[in-house]
């Protein structure tokens, strides 16, 4: 029988202890007023002080080897820590992309010098990263990016525009995916490369794009002949597509793909007589099952198994659930009378909801990934 899922795993006693430690720490932070639990905090909860507090606990750069200043811990340990932080609605956005994506990519494709330069600072919570993939004309069809990289003496010059760059106005660097060789329509994935762009480089212009709730979260990042020295080329020239896609399972299967609105679900559990017990129960059940799935994918990633379709399954189901929770909150609550705090949480969840099933690969594209795994395409 077809199963897209890796085998199930259960927490070891050590992992359970780690969970308890994170839970105690976070509860202490909430009690001390360090943060107020919220929804969608991995993309919007920007709080460098909290990131540094986590770094002091040893909970950033966990899977980075100690020789690069990291903690040399397992992928499952990192899973437990991040899952606890997300469930608690903690503000982890500042370091999120650096810790989740930049570090593993650097470890896999970066030069020794790049690892020495960036990884210790990521672990200390001092270096924040963004994602430089999408462009005005390249969303789901990422291979169509048009930012051009032209080789010059000692490096490359980049010209083009990245868009929807979350937190670029706070971040220090990103990997820019650019076309380093002319497009060959027969081999669209060739000729793409990744460059580490320091966002304070001359010629980089970061312009805000305001979200519908007025927040400044997104940016447009424009490059005008930006010089990137050879020592900041990421991996191999021409291997950009392979590099970008090989990290997608990390990005798609994590607990941030089903816990973005968890704080609202928890609040609905406390809300007096919503009359929607059945639906709340259904969503709690799905959350529990997604916790199992995401955990098993994390374990498989630890063993370097290909879990791209399992990751797609987690993301399709998990992000739909996140949206359903937001909508249920909206259906159940009203502006007046009602609980203003709960309503405010609902409002934030509803505002962020459309992004859940778009960012990191849309649900439609991911269903295509699943269908391919099943041999349909």
């Amino acid at each position, binding site marked *: *029988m*077809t*199963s*897209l*899922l890796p*085998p*199930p795993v*259960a*927490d070891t006693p050590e992992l*359970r202890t780690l*969970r308890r430690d994170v*839970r105690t720490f976070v509860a202490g932070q909430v009690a001390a007023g360090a943060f107020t639990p919220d929804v969608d905090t991995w993309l919007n909860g920007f709080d460098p002080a909290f990131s540094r507090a986590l770094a002091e606990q040893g909970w950033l750069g966990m899977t980075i080897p100690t020789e690069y200043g990291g903690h040399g811990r397992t992928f499952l340990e990192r899973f437990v820590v991040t*899952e*606890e932080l997300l*469930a*608690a609605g903690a503000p982890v956005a500042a370091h999120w992309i650096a810790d989740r994506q930049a570090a593993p990519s650097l470890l896999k494709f970066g030069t020794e010098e790049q690892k020495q330069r960036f990884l210790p600072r990521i672990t200390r919570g001092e270096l924040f990263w963004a994602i430089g993939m999408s462009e005005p004309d390249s969303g789901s069809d990422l291979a169509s990016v048009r930012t051009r990289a032209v080789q010059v003496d000692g490096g490359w010059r980049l010209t083009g525009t990245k868009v929807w760059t979350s937190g670029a106005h706070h971040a220090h660097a990103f990997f820019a995916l650019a076309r380093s060789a002319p497009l060959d329509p027969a081999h669209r994935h060739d000729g793409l490369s990744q460059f580490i762009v320091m966002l304070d480089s001359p010629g980089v212009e970061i312009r805000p794009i305001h979200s519908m709730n007025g927040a400044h979260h997104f940016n447009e990042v424009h490059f005008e002949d930006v010089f990137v020295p050879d020592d900041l080329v990421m991996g191999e020239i021409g291997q950009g597509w392979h590099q970008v896609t090989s990290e997608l399972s990390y990005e798609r299967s994590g607990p941030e793909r089903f816990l973005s609105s*968890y704080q609202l*679900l*928890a*609040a609905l*559990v*406390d809300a007096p007589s919503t009359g929607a*017990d*059945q*639906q*709340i*129960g*259904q969503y*709690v*059940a*799905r*959350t*529990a*099952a*997604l*916790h*199992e*799935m995401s955990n*098993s994918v994390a374990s498989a990633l630890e063993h370097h198994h290909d879990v791209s379709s*399992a990751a797609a*399954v987690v993301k*399709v*189901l998990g992000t739909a659930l996140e949206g359903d929770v937001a909508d249920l909150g909206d259906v159940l609550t009203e502006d007046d009378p009602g609980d203003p705090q709960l309503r405010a949480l609902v409002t934030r969840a509803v505002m962020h909801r459309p992004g859940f099933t778009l960012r990191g690969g849309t649900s*439609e594209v*991911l*269903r*295509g990934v*699943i*269908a391919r795994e*099943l*041999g*349909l*395409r």
Partner: protein
Amino acid sequence: MTTIDTPVSIAEVDPDLIATMREVLSSSAPTPRDPDTGVEFDQALWDQLDELGLARLTGSEESGGSGAGWAESAALLTQAASLAVALPLAEHDLLAGWLLTSAGLPVDADLRSVAVLDADGSARAVPWAPVVSRIVLAWPAGDGGWRVADVPATSVKLTADTNLAGEPRGEITATLDDSEGVPVPEDLIRRLQLRAALVRAVQVAGALERTLDLVTEHVTTRVQFGRPIGKFQAVQHLVADIAAETSLARAAVDAAVRTVATPDVDLAELRFRVAVARSCAGHAASVVVRNSHQALGAIGTTLEHDLHRFTLPALAWRAEYGSTASWDRVVADSALSVGSDGLWELIAG
């Protein structure tokens, strides 16, 4: 048959054992089903399973069982569901056999089912009641406790019926005499009910997984407009959602099997995990049954095609031992009782 290391999940069960299960069950799969009278009990297959030690997988070796655990048993139920073999495997072993042993009563090879009676001595939809030779009854006694007794099926009044999938079911009424039952703690009855509910979730997951296979096979071979229909994105999305929901049900069921296989597991913990499995499997069945029939077209609605051998049981099973909605509410009750502060611990441990 002996097991050395006790596996806690189906994924850890010895592949050779699963291959044996499959081979034996395949030999007379699918179980014939008459649309009017339902499925008949396949005595020959049962005897074969009994001989191989698969009919009393989880019974202790002293009592003639194989000394295996929930994981092996769940693997067997999954294989049976995915091959459309209808047999009282769970009822005989995981439920009736377990209840007898737990109540300190003797067990033998007679085919058994189990029923939790109401105060009037009745129970509805008792699985395989028209087929089994004995039924293990549990009932609330006059003194507020519970009693268990092992009675011949002929001693109860039976109105035979079938479920949606044609499996034998029956309404039974027994004349109760508290002094004829062995007193058991209420906790045992609650566990029995949770085990029964989990059995159905295990079966649903197996049926859904096979449905995914049938659909995949169909959409990659059926040609319309000059290409396999699986090339159409609309169809791909139907199938992707079948795969996703089936995976979710599988994850929830595996977690519940792991929980029930844990010695002395806390009742509240078991109730939550079983309820999660029933909720996820129950709702998964909605999507899988709808999408699979949509993807199969008219042929999928016929007696001739195998699809109904999996979709009908999935629907039948999710409606037994509590509706999907009732299990949603059990999850909600668990959540409400711990509140938002305890919710995450309930979910993640």
